[in-house]
């Protein structure tokens, strides 16, 4: 399994107040595991305001991320939300996208991580996969689902 995604970087059925809360929650395990700098969250939130990452897939997905300098160890955190949170649309900040799955990307070498990035894109284009991820009751299920795509 690609080392960027770990069971302890997956949180399911979470409740958050807003998109920025969702980013902070997704960043928590990465911060604890020394994958990102202390100011990653602030930078990712700021970037989300300027260049939003919400995507209107069958179940809305957001892919927050920020500059490479805030990444200590490349990693990806996944959060599924109990409630729906509004993110602005990628390429269209005025668009409101209801999001239930967040992939927080801590990447500093996209060429090297192309395969995992492409896998995430393949998954979010797959309605069945999104439904299964959303319905997952524990991190292990999501980990196993993604593993089948790698």
């Amino acid at each position, binding site marked *: 399994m690609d080392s960027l995604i770990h069971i302890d970087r997956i949180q399911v059925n979470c409740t958050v107040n807003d998109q920025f809360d969702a980013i902070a929650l997704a960043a928590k395990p990465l911060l604890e595991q020394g994958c990102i700098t202390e100011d990653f969250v602030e930078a990712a939130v700021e970037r989300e305001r300027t260049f939003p990452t919400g995507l209107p897939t069958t179940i809305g997905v957001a892919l927050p*991320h920020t500059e490479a300098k805030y990444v200590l160890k490349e990693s990806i955190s996944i959060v599924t939300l109990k409630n729906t949170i509004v993110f602005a649309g990628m*390429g269209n900040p005025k668009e409101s996208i209801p999001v239930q799955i967040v992939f927080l990307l801590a990447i500093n070498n996209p060429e090297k991580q192309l395969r995992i990035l492409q896998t995430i894109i393949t998954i979010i284009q797959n309605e069945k996969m999104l439904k299964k991820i959303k319905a997952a009751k524990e991190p292990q299920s999501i980990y196993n689902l993604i593993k089948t795509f790698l």
Partner: protein
Amino acid sequence: MKLVLVACGTALATSTVVAKKIEQIAQENGIECRTVQAKAVDAFQKYQELHPDAIVCTCQLEGDIDIPVINGRAFLTGINLQSTIDQLIEILKK
């Protein structure tokens, strides 16, 4: 050789995936094409320097751009993907 400028907020995650897809689509259609990635803030300068044939972006762009600009979000969501591909091929075949 055609040149497509691919822009996103950080030139880090989404533009890499989108750039590879564009290269793949061009190859499948027998079009010689390379891509250059740019951060949104640098995109206009790169456009002026490199004179690309098209810009594909997953972000809003500022500045006066007189070449086709394609919203690259379809490459990520799969929504309206075929029409985006058709639009790109039409530009690159010119």
